[in-house]
C-alpha cells in the first residue's frame, strides 16, 4: 500500500490545462440560450416523491409476547414498529460495521507503520465491540417479539448509505488515513444514532434496553475518540505539522 499521498500529475483541475482551459472558457460564447423545459427536473423529482411509497414495511411481531407488547404500546398510542425499525437499522449498521473494521484490519496489517497509539489489537477490540453490539440488538429485537433477520425499511436505507463507506474502505488504493476517515464517518453516525435510539427506547418505557444501550453508547464514544486520535496523529505526521 502506498503509505501517503504525494504531489504528482493530477489532471482534473482546470489549472492543470493552461492552454486548453482558455479554449474551454471560450465555449460559453458558443452556447445558445434556450428557455427552460416544459417540465423541470425539480418538478419531475417532486412527482416521483409525491407518488412514492416507503421502501417497504416492518414485519409484525412473530410471538405472543411481542404481539401483546405491541398491542399494549398501541393502546398507549405508541407505535412499536418504529422502535423495531430503528433497532433493525442499528443492527444492520453494527453488522456492516464489523465488516468495515475487518477491511480496516487488512489495511492496517499491510501498512508500513501505524500512527501513535494505534495497534492491530486496538482495532480488533473495536471490531469485536461492534460484533457484540450486533448480538445485543439481535437479542433486543427477539425480546420484543421481532425477527432480527428481517431487513426493515430503515435497515434498507441505512444499507444504501453504507455502500459509500464500503467502497471507500475496500479500495486497496485508499491510504491508512483515508481508511481512518471512513471509520470516523462511521463512528460519528453510530454514536449519534445510539443516543437517539436510547431516547426512543426510553420513550417506549423500555428502560432495561435503554440501560444496555447506554453502555453501548459509551463504547461507541470511546471508539470515536480513539479513531479521531489516530486520524489526527496520522494527518499531523503526513503534513509534518504539530498541533
Amino acid at each position, binding site marked *: 500500500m502506498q503509505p501517503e499521498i504525494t504531489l504528482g500529475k493530477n489532471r482534473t483541475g482546470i489549472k492543470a490545462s493552461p492552454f486548453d482551459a482558455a479554449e474551454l472558457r471560450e465555449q460559453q460564447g458558443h452556447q445558445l440560450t434556450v428557455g427552460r423545459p416544459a417540465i423541470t427536473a425539480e418538478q419531475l423529482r417532486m412527482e416521483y416523491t409525491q407518488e412514492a411509497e416507503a*421502501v417497504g414495511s416492518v414485519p409484525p411481531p412473530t410471538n405472543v409476547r411481542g404481539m401483546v407488547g405491541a398491542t399494549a404500546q398501541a393502546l398507549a398510542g405508541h407505535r412499536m414498529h418504529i422502535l423495531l425499525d430503528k433497532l433493525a437499522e442499528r443492527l444492520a449498521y453494527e453488522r456492516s460495521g464489523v465488516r468495515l473494521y475487518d477491511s480496516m484490519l487488512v489495511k492496517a496489517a499491510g501498512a508500513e507503520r501505524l500512527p501513535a497509539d494505534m495497534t492491530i489489537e486496538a482495532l480488533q477490540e473495536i471490531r469485536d465491540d461492534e460484533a457484540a453490539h450486533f448480538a445485543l440488538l439481535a437479542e433486543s429485537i427477539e425480546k420484543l417479539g421481532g425477527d*432480527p433477520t428481517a431487513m426493515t425499511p430503515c435497515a434498507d436505507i441505512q444499507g444504501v448509505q453504507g455502500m459509500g463507506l464500503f467502497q471507500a474502505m*475496500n479500495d486497496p488504493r*485508499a491510504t491508512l488515513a483515508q481508511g481512518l476517515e471512513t471509520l470516523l464517518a462511521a463512528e460519528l453516525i453510530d454514536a449519534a444514532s445510539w443516543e437517539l435510539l436510547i431516547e426512543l427506547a426510553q420513550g417506549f418505557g423500555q428502560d432495561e434496553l435503554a440501560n444496555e444501550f447506554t453502555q453501548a453508547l459509551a463504547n461507541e464514544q470511546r471508539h470515536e475518540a480513539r479513531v479521531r486520535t489516530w486520524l489526527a496523529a496520522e494527518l499531523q505526521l503526513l503534513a509534518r505539522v504539530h498541533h
Partner: protein
Amino acid sequence: MALSLTDIQGTPVDRQRFTWRELVQAPISKLDDDAFTRVRIILMNGLELEANRFSHMAARMNRDLRGELARIRRVEQHQATAINWLIGADHSPLETTIAYEQVAIEVTAAVAQREPDEYLAQTYRFGLLEDFDHMYRYSAMLDRLEGKDANNILQCYTDILPGRPTMVEHRHPDDDLRTPMDARTAHPLSKLHALTIMSAEQQTHNYYMNIGPLFTDPVARLLYAEIASIEEQHTTQYESIIDPDQTWMEQWLMHELMEVYNYYGCVQQETNPRIKALWERFLDYELGQLKHVMELFKQIERRDPLELIGESLPDPIPFASQRDFVRDVLTREVDLRARGTEYVPMEEDSELSIAYRDHMNSQGSPTEAVADGYVYRPGTELAALHKRAA
C-alpha cells in the same frame, strides 16, 4: 391453461408506444414484494435484451429485414427499460446478483423437470449445479463484504450451499459446446426452454461484466471476473443446443413466441397487481409483434407459421421454489463434468479443460478464497459467531 395461437390479436405494432414516465415507474419493494416478482422482472429483462441482440445480428445479415427489425426492436428496447427499471436502487449490486442467481437456479430447475428431451434436461441440470454454486459464493461475499444476509433477497425459497465448485467449472471452449436439437423434430417446449435459459444466462453474463469493475474490493473484482467467465460458458452451452440450421425468420418467429410464452407465464402467476398489469400490457404487445412476424414469415418463407409454432402454447414455466429437485440433483450429479458434447464422471474429465482450469486457477481461486469456511446462517455468519450468552 394453454394459450391459443390460431387467432392472435394483440396491440398492432404501430400503436405500441410509451412516454418516458411510463418507462420509469416506481420500483418494486425489495422488502415486501415476493422474490418471484423480482425473478420475473430479471428474467423478462433478459429475454428482451436477447430480443435486442438477436434483432441486431439479424439486421447485420438481412438488408431487406432491417426496417421491420428496427421497428419491433425499438418497442422491445422500451419494454426492456420499463421492466429492468423496476428493480430499485436500494438493491446493492451484490444483492441484485443474488437475485440473478435465484433466477438461474429456480427457472433452470423448473425447466429441467419439464424438458421432454433427456439430453437437454441433463444440460439444464448440469448448468443448474454451477449457478447453484455461484449463489453460495456470492452469498459469502455479501455476508463478508457488506454484512448482509442473502436470504433477505431469497426469502427462504432457495438454499445456499456449495454446488459444483466454480473452480472446476472452467472448461476449454470445446467442452462447452453441446449437440443442438433438430428444430424440425424437437418438441415445442424444448425450443422455448432453450431460448429462455440462453437469454437468462446471457443477461447474467452482461450484468456481471458491467458491475464487476464497479467494486473497489479486489476480491469482489476477482469473484466477478471468475463467475462472469462461467456465465459466458453457460451462454455458449445453451446457445449450442439451439438448431443453427433454422432460417433467420424461423429464429425470429421462435423469439417472439418465446416472449409471448414467458409473458403469459408472468401474467398467470404475478402476485403484485401493478406489475401484473405491466405483464398484461406487454403480453398484448408481444402478441401484436408475434402476429406481425407470423405475417412476415408467411410472405417471406411462403409457409404456414403454425406448422412451426403449433396451435397453442404449452403451460408456462412455474415460478416456485424447486428446492427438493435441486437438492436431489446436487446429491446425484455434482461430480459430473463435460467432455465435448457429453457429460461424464469426474474421472473422465477432459484433459483440455483440466489444463485450462489449472492455468486459470494457478494464481489463486477467487471463489475458493471468498467462501473459505463459509456456512450460511440466517442473520449472517456473525449471528452464529456472536450469540450472546443467556
